[in-house]
């Protein structure tokens, strides 16, 4: 039988420490090398600039490598991801050395530095959310593919309307509550605030109100109210999925857009430096 390699969790942890050590050692080595170059009256920014450009091109190549996954000699995406993280962290240190740990005052250099810092920051943000948010999603009752969320939302609305349609016309307490409060919650998109900091406050409020309404309801209506509560919980889970999965997906677009801008501006910076910079010495 064809075998696939399994990497135990402990080995992944070991690999992380090894790579961190390599990245830290490399940063130290580059800092010392820069110092030696400066002491010997070389312009170390040329060297650090080339090292930084190499690091940035390597980091940007990750997106291409992911698409060439079928080329066996390229290794696994997980190894590339680890390299991307640690070379990314290392590039932050090289950038600091390159700009002398202060923000450049020229307009173009300022824009370039802003693009690098933004790309770096978006990368760190992506790293943090890719480690924290999956756990939040895993803790939910349902698991759903992002593209299926609108369809599931629609089916929840249909389910809720079927529950309301079953209620006899003479008891309109629950119907009115549905029309005034629940329908909007089920049908309308959630606010930007929910996207930024999703919370169950709104759904909990609706459920609390449904519970407090219990004394006005008949036995049959209470069962309908219970079903509505379940639908509200499911909708809340879906919205939570939407908010968190959107964040996990869309940060990458921002990171990529910044990366490509950085590559273009970086290339231009290289041309300008070579045209007017005066050379290594």
């Amino acid at each position, binding site marked *: 039988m064809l075998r696939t390699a399994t*990497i135990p969790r402990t080995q992944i942890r070991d690999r992380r420490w090894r790579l961190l050590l390599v990245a830290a050692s490399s940063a130290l080595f580059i800092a010392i090398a820069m110092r030696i170059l400066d002491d010997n009256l070389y312009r170390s920014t040329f060297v650090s600039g080339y090292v930084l450009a190499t690091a940035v091109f390597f980091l940007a190549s990750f997106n291409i490598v992911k698409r060439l996954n079928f080329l066996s000699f390229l290794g696994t995406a997980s190894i590339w*991801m680890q390299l991307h993280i640690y070379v990314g962290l290392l590039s932050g240190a090289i950038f600091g050395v390159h700009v002398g740990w202060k923000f450049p005052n020229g307009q173009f250099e300022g824009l370039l530095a802003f693009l690098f810092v933004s790309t770096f920051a978006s990368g760190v943000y992506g790293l943090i959310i890719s480690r924290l948010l999956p756990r939040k999603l895993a803790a939910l009752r349902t698991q759903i593919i992002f593209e299926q969320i609108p369809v599931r939302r629609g089916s929840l609305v249909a389910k809720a309307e079927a529950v309301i349609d079953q209620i006899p016309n003479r008891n309109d307490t629950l119907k009115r509550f549905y029309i005034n409060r629940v329908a909007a919650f089920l049908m309308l998109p959630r606010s930007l605030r929910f996207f930024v900091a999703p919370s169950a406050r709104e759904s909990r409020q609706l459920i609390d109100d449904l519970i407090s309404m219990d004394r006005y309801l008949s036995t049959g209506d209470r069962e309908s109210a219970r079903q509505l509560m379940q639908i509200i919980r499911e909708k809340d889970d879906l919205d939570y999925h939407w908010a968190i999965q959107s964040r996990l997906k869309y940060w990458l677009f921002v990171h990529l857009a910044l990366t490509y801008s950085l590559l273009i501006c970086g290339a231009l910076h290289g041309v300008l430096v070579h045209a007017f910079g005066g050379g290594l010495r």
Partner: protein
Amino acid sequence: MNRISRSVTRIERWNQPLDPGMSAAIVEEILGMDPFAAMDESRFSSQIPLLGILANDCRIVEFEPGDLLMRQGDYGGSVFLVLEGQVNATLQKLPAELLGRQIPRKKKWLEVLKQAWNGSAPPERRELHGPVTTQANGRQVGHEGQTFVQDIPQVFEGLTSRAIHPGQLFGEVSALTRSPRTATVLARTSGRLLEMRWQGFRDLMDRAPELRESINRAYREHSLFSHLAETTILQHLTPSELQAVAAATEFHSFGKLQWTGEFRSMIQADVAERILREPVIVQQGDYVNGLILIQSGFARVTRREGVGEQTIEYIGKGRHFGLREIAHNFRTKESRPWNLTLRATGYTDTLMIPTPIVEQFVLPRLPPELAPALFQTKERTPIGSASSRRAEQRSNGLSTKLLENLVEHRLVNGTQAMVIDLNRCTRCDDCVRACATAHDNNPRFVRQGIVFDNLMFASACMQCVDPVCMIGCPTGAIARDEATGVITINEQTCIGCKTCANSCPYNNIQMVAVSDQRGVALIDQTTQLPILQATKCDLCIDQRSGPACQKACPHDALIRIDLSTPVELNEWMNG
């Protein structure tokens, strides 16, 4: 004008005969031979007549001395009948270089690179009615017959082998049980074989009770000895002792061979009820009457807990149950009953070696490396004690809840299950995209499935130990690849009957409407309905890089893993 559909002839069962060269004269000749001469043609239906089976599901294979006819460890879908000459079967392991194993065809570098540009390719393109590849059908002799073993007398000199003469069958056990070949068969003289697709052979068995009877008898005789000889705790016995053990061994089968329907109804039931509905092999508290060996399928080990049953472990083919209890009673002269209950999940074949036979032949000769663990564990932790329970729990490392779910959802059947750690998965879908790239822009799995705690068992073909999907396939389009054991679907012989998709207990086979190379939908000339074909994960068998999904996961969240024992999953989670 662009066409949106094109009428074609639907593929049917015998569109692609095993050998287009099977003439009426050859069929007549075979019909006059045993066991076909004794068969009553009126028992066969008009759709699948005896002559039809012989003409379409059979072929003649000529062999010369030294030809390799069947290779131990391969998966095969054919049964062989010796017509002329002599062949020899051996259970001994022969060197791989002598057997000349074939490696499945991988894509060439240019083909691999082309994959990067197929992002806009129309879905499910097919070149139907193209050339048939016997490799994908899992047939044995077509190419294996070309493997020639030199100096055949010398090879046979050192081997314990059994001669198979004209009129005798071989290969039926693995073909019918969907398990690897247990023997290697080499030609001793020149002669002729009749190769039969297992689908055709199954139809013959259904319609000819005398054939069925003799197959069952041969199955018991031949597979028993080899199974016992392969069992670790019996490997130290002499052939005569093994014969004595074999003579006393009892066969028992539990559950249904085609267990999908029962599984689907059972999975709806309450957890406690599900366990209780599984057939009991041995019951906790009963007299220890023998050592149980699992011959095929899986069994769940449970312990009574309150009014319910708690899953302790699951065991599969080659594992044994009850040696601890028998050894304890043998040593202490006590007569403790079964400490645990053993239940069949799905279809389970067991062998039972009676306790007196185990005490007489097995225990006195048990090698020290197997024996001390049994006895020492007993002395330190009495059976059923709290410390013994904790030790059992530690031994497999998985929680009871996870173990129970693996057994109840029959995930233990998977040798390459796709498991996703949801605590690490960022839902980036890189795995799905990689799968699509590797399969001409058609993903072969869905990133959804059964979830327990933080683990998702995604809807991807698990390459099952017991692939029930293969049972009903009328053309043999779905078959195990001989070299890798991966179950593949042959586009040239899949007639779109949905039998495999309906049989798969995990809904991991999808039926798709196919189109031609330009994306024009193919429809049946007669019914004007779309042509459907079955699709599933093939573990990227033609890729140079292995399963694309696992390779593409940047977060080490996705893994293809063998669940037939809890070892790999435990190592991955806790390793």
